[in-house]
């Protein structure tokens, strides 16, 4: 059974979103996603200042099995890509919700609230996918 912390929001494409105290959000891939990918060998994170629309690919995670895009859960401007992942991509495998964060994002001002999943909803999705 995958680890799905209850205080985070999720996407159908297996990203997690954490709202930080300064209003920015932190984004990564879920424990389920890292498990499906296998040992990560390379991660490409976005540069600060890049503007993203919701659903736009912003990072590439490459494992011994596959390389996959990671999609922006919400629109906004990148404030930071996780610099530690260049040297230590396996942090995503060992700590997907902590040291394995991919980027921090300042959400675009207004607009419709994005349709993110709750932990319970994501848990159900993973169960349906056989995870």
């Amino acid at each position, binding site marked *: 059974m995958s680890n799905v912390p209850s205080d985070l929001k999720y996407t159908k494409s297996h990203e997690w979103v954490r709202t930080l105290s300064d209003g920015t959000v932190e984004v990564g891939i879920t424990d389920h996603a890292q498990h499906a990918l296998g040992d990560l*060998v*390379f991660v490409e994170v976005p540069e600060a200042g890049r503007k993203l629309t919701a659903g736009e690919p912003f990072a590439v995670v490459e494992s011994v099995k*596959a*390389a996959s895009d990671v999609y922006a859960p919400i629109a906004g401007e990148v404030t930071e890509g996780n610099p530690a992942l260049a040297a230590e991509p396996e942090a995503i495998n060992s700590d997907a919700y902590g040291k394995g964060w991919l980027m921090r994002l300042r959400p675009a001002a207004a607009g419709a609230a994005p349709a993110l999943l709750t932990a319970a909803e994501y848990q159900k999705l993973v169960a349906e996918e056989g995870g």
Partner: protein
Amino acid sequence: MAFIPHTREDVAAMLAAIGVGSIEELFDEIPANLRLGALSGVPESLSEMEIGRLMAERARLDGRPLCFIGAGAYEHHIPAAVWAIATRGEFYSAYTPYQAEASQGTLQLLYEFQTMMASLTGLDVSNASLYDGASAMAEASLMAVRANRKSHSQRILVPSTVHPHYRKAARAVAGNQGLVFEELPYCTEDGRILPGALERYDGQDITALVIQQPNFFGRLEDVDTLCDWAHARNILVVAVVNPTSLALLKPPGSWGTKGADIAVGEGQPLGVPLSSGGPYFGFMTARMEHVRQMPGRIVGRTVDAAGRAGFTLTLQAREQHIRRAKATSNICTNQGLLVTAATVYLSLMGPAGLERVAAASHARTRELVGALTRVPGVRRLFRGPAFHEDAIAIDRPVAPLLETLAARGIVGGLDLSEHYPQLGQALLVCATETKTSADIERYATVLAECLREARAA
């Protein structure tokens, strides 16, 4: 012989399994106006005997001329052992070596090829080859766009001293993918990038600068200054180089303070015959930081389960059989046979042998230009040093002159007027180590004869 092993029943079973009625239905998404339908203008098939005879007749039409044309393909001596080894059955029929346990010989050869190319260009990593020099430049431009994350413009600066065919191929391959190739003017006095041509780009978002060394005119660009200019502005540098020249010239990895980011070129001079224009092969090397954006196969050295050294394809996650539409390129198989010849050629020549070839080619070209410019009405077009080709200006129309020379058994060079009309009546000439002093004298004598006759007419 049937090349497709599937029986009618196999095909029906496969279609039924995916729920499609016919093979034609698989192509439904391609609009009718984009389909070719029947092939027109293709003659009836010929038997092996008939095609052999036809090709022999065509080959005879070429005659055995003395060739003084370079312009991207160079006639070098190829030791007999090169193709004797390259055409051994083990190499001749080898295909992409997915199955490492059954392909150690091919993989080791490709690994050695990569090692040699990385060493020649002074860069960290090499792929296992591309189609040819022109498409390699196009791939390098696409790679630079992926690798340069500080730039968002997809603008590539390409001097007009880069081979015209390369520029055309790059636009054809990458133009529809949004890349914009902007041509830099050249100086008609020294045949190099115009000093100051870059100034107008200061402060603009440019992705990469292409530098060909030696350039299309055989001349040496100021690579150190150009490379540093680019790097100071977060512009990546794509070097287009002749592999033979690297035995003498500074390798791209040592250009300027940082070195070029990517080097590509035409591999034909390394053991591949001119052969009416192909097949040839392209090569590509890069700095390690860009390796994941590099297209094509990469062979790596590793150990097996028992700890024994071995070779295998590596970094395949970049490739299309894994990454599908987002792969670094659509290159699936490399020019294996030609790469085999090149690897054997380089190992037979060694660094000292390649250096002798380069030095002899340079000396022969100087001798050629000296002999030709002693002919009245012929002068050297550009000032300054050249590697193994050079441009000469002639005071008569070049096209008919080349025809007269060809009728007398001499391929006199490339008429520059098609791509560089502003140069007037000009010819790009080349002599490699395959030309003797007697060959060069003969060209000069026949040229003088032709020009005398043209003036008398």
